[in-house]
């Protein structure tokens, strides 16, 4: 088992602005030196954009450092390629697992392995053995586009494990796994690490780091603040969020709270908020919805919690109109829509806005200009050079302190920035209902707190906020929600 080391790593990204703007350099990593030992779980903490992902991408060969070296065992590299990284025992499981949708699980796992023939039965045997060792259940012959998020994570994990790595990099694994699975997974990881496997765990969940890791490193704005034995929760949280934004939110939520304590009665109040009646849908290869009836009252924040595979993602698609429902209806203060009428445009007319879980491709698109992404609902019929839409978009960027020209592609934004912009865009429509799917997914404590502030504000202004989440951590502060519903196998229980 080898030890891996990053020495004096510096990574500069160059961003180009609009015409006339000079090329600016942003240091994503600034002189970072870190050691990853075998047999250890090494957690890397930091807020969004602190450089956690860049750091492990350099280690796994997806990025080239601007300066500094990478030492693996006895070899020293200026930079590694992905295949060098794999060859030297470094395997990574990405936050959004990089899988080829057209291939089966087995084929995905075999992808990139040496040799000529793909001995699938033999490979499947090996994969199954690894899966058993980690307590993973997965149908290996399925094409990966039919898998749930957690299954995709497992597929990617098995792919990494089959390269028998010395060092396993895990990018935010917990954001995908449900509570029970989470526990089982980390127990297995712990066990394997005690056999000598090294693990790098990127996470924004401080509690997770405290509970499972042997060593913690904290990054902030590209600089390494701390690296050493795990500290207490408080110490670490203070290090990451010195302004204490997170606790302020909790107080705010309590102050504005007029809890109902129980589910609103169905069908009594269809004139405001969102009321859903008997909604059913049966999309292929996914959990069906069978007769969902619930309501999200105005001025309240309602949550629906469900494990992956509970039908929560089907519900998201149904509520955003991306999926045709077979029966039922959906009502807001502005309109009553039968299942056959539910479509994105009809929903928007009815005053419903949505922040989808897939921000990259559905809520936005990497190829789109930021301005075009923000003005989706506000483009005037004829676009003059200084139009309201442009003013509107500039204002949002200004409010979010994102210094980027409108013509830049959204692919240059960090995940957190994108999430904030999508939310702002939807909120700006002053919706009577706002549906958010996994709003805190990938957000650090600070950003998550800011998000909650915004949601609370929107609720105070009378919007019915509906949060769909499979992350139990969302309920660390249960007072934030006025009502929590639980979904299982396509029904609310």
């Amino acid at each position, binding site marked *: 088992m080898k030890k891996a080391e990053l020495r004096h790593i510096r990574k500069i990204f160059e961003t180009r602005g*609009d*015409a006339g703007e000079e090329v600016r350099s942003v240091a994503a990593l600034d002189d970072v030196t870190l050691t990853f030992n075998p047999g250890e779980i090494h957690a890397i903490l930091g807020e969004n954009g602190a450089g956690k992902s860049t750091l492990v991408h350099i280690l796994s060969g997806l990025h080239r450092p601007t300066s500094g070296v990478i030492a693996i065992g006895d070899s020293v590299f200026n930079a590694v390629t992905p295949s060098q990284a794999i060859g030297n025992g470094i395997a990574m499981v990405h936050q959004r697992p990089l899988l080829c949708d057209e291939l089966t699980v087995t084929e995905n796992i075999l992808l990139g392995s040496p040799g000529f023939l793909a001995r699938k039965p033999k490979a499947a045997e090996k994969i199954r053995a690894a899966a058993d060792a980690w307590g993973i259940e997965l149908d290996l012959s399925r094409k990966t586009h039919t898998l749930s998020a957690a299954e995709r994570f497992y597929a990617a994990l098995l792919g990494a494990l089959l390269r028998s790595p010395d060092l396993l990099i895990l990018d935010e694994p917990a954001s995908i796994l449900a509570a029970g699975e989470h526990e089982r997974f980390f127990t297995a990881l712990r066990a394997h690490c005690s056999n000598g496997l090294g693990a790098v765990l990127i996470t924004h969940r401080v509690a997770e780091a405290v509970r499972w890791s042997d060593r913690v490193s904290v990054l902030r704005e590209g600089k390494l603040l701390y690296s050493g034995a795990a500290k207490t929760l408080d110490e670490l949280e203070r290090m990451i969020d010195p302004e204490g934004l997170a606790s302020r939110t909790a107080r705010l939520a309590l102050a504005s709270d007029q809890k109902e304590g129980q589910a609103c009665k169905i069908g009594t109040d269809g004139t405001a908020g969102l009321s859903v009646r008997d909604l059913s849908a049966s999309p292929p290869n996914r959990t069906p919805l069978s007769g969902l009836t619930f309501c999200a009252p105005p001025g309240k924040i309602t949550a629906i919690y469900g494990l992956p595979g509970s039908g929560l993602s089907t519900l998201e698609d149904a509520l955003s109109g991306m999926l045709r429902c077979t029966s039922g209806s959906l009502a807001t203060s502005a309109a009553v829509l039968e299942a056959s009428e539910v479509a994105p445009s009809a929903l928007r007319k009815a005053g419903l806005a949505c922040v989808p879980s897939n921000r990259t491709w559905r809520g936005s698109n990497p190829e789109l200009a930021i*301005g075009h992404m923000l003005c989706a609902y506000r483009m005037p019929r004829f676009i003059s050079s200084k139009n309201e839409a442009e003013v509107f978009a500039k204002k949002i960027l200004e409010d979010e302190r994102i210094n980027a020209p*409108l*013509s830049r592609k959204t692919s240059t934004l960090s995940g957190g920035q994108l999430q904030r912009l999508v939310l702002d865009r939807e909120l700006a429509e002053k919706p009577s209902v706002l549906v958010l799917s996994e709003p805190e997914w990938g957000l650090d404590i600070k950003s998550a707190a800011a998000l909650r502030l915004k949601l609370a504000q929107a609720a105070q202004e009378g919007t019915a906020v509906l949060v769909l989440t499979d992350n139990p951590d969302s309920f660390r502060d249960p007072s934030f929600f006025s009502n929590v519903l639980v979904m299982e196998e396509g029904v609310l229980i």
Partner: protein
Amino acid sequence: MKRNNLKRITATGAVLIALTAAVSILSVSCAKKTAEPDDASAAENAQNSNRERVIAVFVPGIVSGSPVYEMLVSGVEKAVDEAAGAGANVRLQVIEAGTKQADWGAKMTTLASSANYALIVSSNPALPEIVDPISKQFPAQKFVIFDSYFEGNPAVTTFRYNQREQAYLSGYMAALVSTSGMESANKDKKIGLVAGQEYPAMLNVILPAFLEGAKAVDPEFEVDFRVVGNWYDAAKGAELARAMNEAGVDVIMPISGGANQGVVAAAKEKGFYVAWFDDNGYAKAPGRVVSSSIMAQERLAYEKTRDWINGSLAEGTPGTVGIADGYVDFVSDDPLYVEHVPAALREKQEALLAKLKSGELVLTVK
């Protein structure tokens, strides 16, 4: 938002032009070799007080692989060489205009407008109609166009072949072979014609005359007429020929450019016979090609160009040439023909030829 884009476009534009330039240098410098003799002769001419006359051969297609145009070019070439050898200051330039008919007009205009050419020679039934309006724009430009017929323009002189005679000869021989006892002939009174495309001369003259010739052997004869759709799909030509053979056709006349090769290949494989058209084709498949009715395009092009250089050509009138004056003929002295076609058939064909030559049988074209 667009400014960035524009800048990129301008930059790429500039690069493109630079690159095009570089590539063109390469390619044109390769072509320069052919250009040199021209330059040399041009310099010579400058010293010569005798004004040079350039004859252009305008090829509405591509010379190579097309017997009609190959014969045209070599005929004109022969006349020009001969005249130049005798001290006349004439020169030849061959211009290929490609197969797209819509472009011929513009290309012909380019030639006419350049006023560089004393005479433009060409060959295609459709050309006079393209040339006529151009000629009105440039009345000084003279044209001689073979394989076509046009009246009423003093600057345009046309000659057409009696293709009815030519196709009649083929049809007659094909029917003779089909009814003979030759090993691959069958009982069906069916012969075939494979055309590249349907066009007026084909539908109005060649196809009917081919049938007419066959019916002269036996009135029960039919012609199986099929079309390839282009002038190059040889595999389709072969498929069509096979299908025709299955349907009882034992002699096929291909008039389909490059696709003729497909018919020949199918004939070798399946063992039916081929009637060749326009030039001598016996050697294409010895023993399989049983007929070659030709037009003497090379001779005609040579003679008329020679006459024009000498100033003895009757300009502005259309002429029709045929068997009687020897511009349409049947190749009967090829050893392969003599070897593979039974004497009885050859005699009958000779008799027909004699009747046509003597005027006993008259086949006029409209």
